[in-house]
């Protein structure tokens, strides 16, 4: 069946035209193909009748979602994300108790503006009072007491050192004093006077 494409196309369109439309006179080969087509059409038609005894599946068109709901959903999700971020990253206040004192109790000065009297006051949380671990006898205390001048020397040197670290404009004098005292201590230690 070596025909030009257009000729072949035309013949096959005639062959496969709907079975109830009879095409014009066909040659023997084309008529044979036409019979095949009609036979297939009969089988397909019968098959369709058979399967169409079962109801066709239904297709429900999805309901249209309102844009208001979409906007509300997006807003709610955004708000939740912001709250979550804030909860995680923003610094939190120390657990200081904030109490609003009643106006009658705080408004002792009648001349003050009423806004000032109604401001909440921050009351520091009282430190828990722990019971003493043990009762120490006075005689034992006397034995434990230790008045050592070296402690005072060391404390004074530490103070000088702290002050020297805090600033540098006045550091020359105190450093000299500190140096002198350290030298004195060194001498005393070498002489075993302490």
């Amino acid at each position, binding site marked *: 069946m070596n025909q030009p494409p257009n000729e072949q*196309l035309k013949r096959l369109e005639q062959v496969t035209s709907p*079975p109830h439309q009879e095409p014009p006179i066909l040659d023997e080969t084309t008529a044979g193909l036409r019979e095949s087509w*009609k036979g297939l059409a009969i089988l*397909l038609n*019968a098959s*369709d009748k*058979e399967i169409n*005894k079962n109801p066709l599946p239904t*297709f429900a068109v999805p309901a249209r979602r309102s844009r208001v709901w979409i906007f509300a959903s997006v807003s709610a999700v955004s708000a939740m994300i912001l709250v979550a971020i804030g909860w995680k990253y923003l610094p939190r206040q120390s657990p200081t108790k904030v109490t609003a004192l009643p106006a009658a109790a705080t408004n002792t000065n009648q001349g003050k503006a009423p806004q000032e009297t109604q401001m909440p006051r921050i009351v520091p949380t009282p430190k828990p009072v722990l019971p003493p671990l043990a009762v120490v006898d006075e005689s034992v205390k006397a034995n434990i007491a230790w008045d050592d001048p070296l402690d005072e020397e060391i404390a004074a040197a530490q103070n000088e050192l702290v002050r020297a670290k805090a600033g540098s404009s006045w550091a020359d004098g105190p450093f000299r004093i500190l140096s002198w005292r350290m030298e004195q201590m060194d001498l005393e230690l070498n002489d075993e006077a302490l």
Partner: protein
Amino acid sequence: MFASFDHRRDAQRVTQWMRDHGRAVRGYLFALVRRLDLADDLTQDVFRKAWQARGSYQEQGTPLAYLLRIADRVACDWSRRVRPELNLDGNDWRRFEPAAEESDAEHGLHHAEAVDELMAALDQLSAVQRRVLLLRYYGDLSFTEIATVLNCPLNTALSHCRRALSTLRKMLAGKFESPL
């Protein structure tokens, strides 16, 4: 307000398509996959895809041709999903996907003689030959459209059609004497 009007118009159109062409689409899919339950599922897939693509639908050709194009793609996708190493164009398709009698029996489809004969006739054809004849029968697609669906040259589509009918002629010769 316009969006609401568009939605209603699209819904009416797809619902109308389902009423007018649902049986043809199901028949096409049934002839390809040979299982009614599966054909029903794939038919729903076809209309769902048509609904999803409603925004890009252009009224070129008939709606049935448009739906059959989707159906053909859905059937091919299904065959690749089930048997990734096969496709509808392969000869292995027939070996791996025979008619599933048990499944059809479950769904109350009793194979009539005509259905059995149809299946026997389609078994004589390659998958691509089946698609050519079925697209032509159910959708009355032109051969140019069929070539587009099959992604092959027009001459190839014509050859498939001619060979398929020649094969069927040997089987169906003299079987149907009465005119339609």
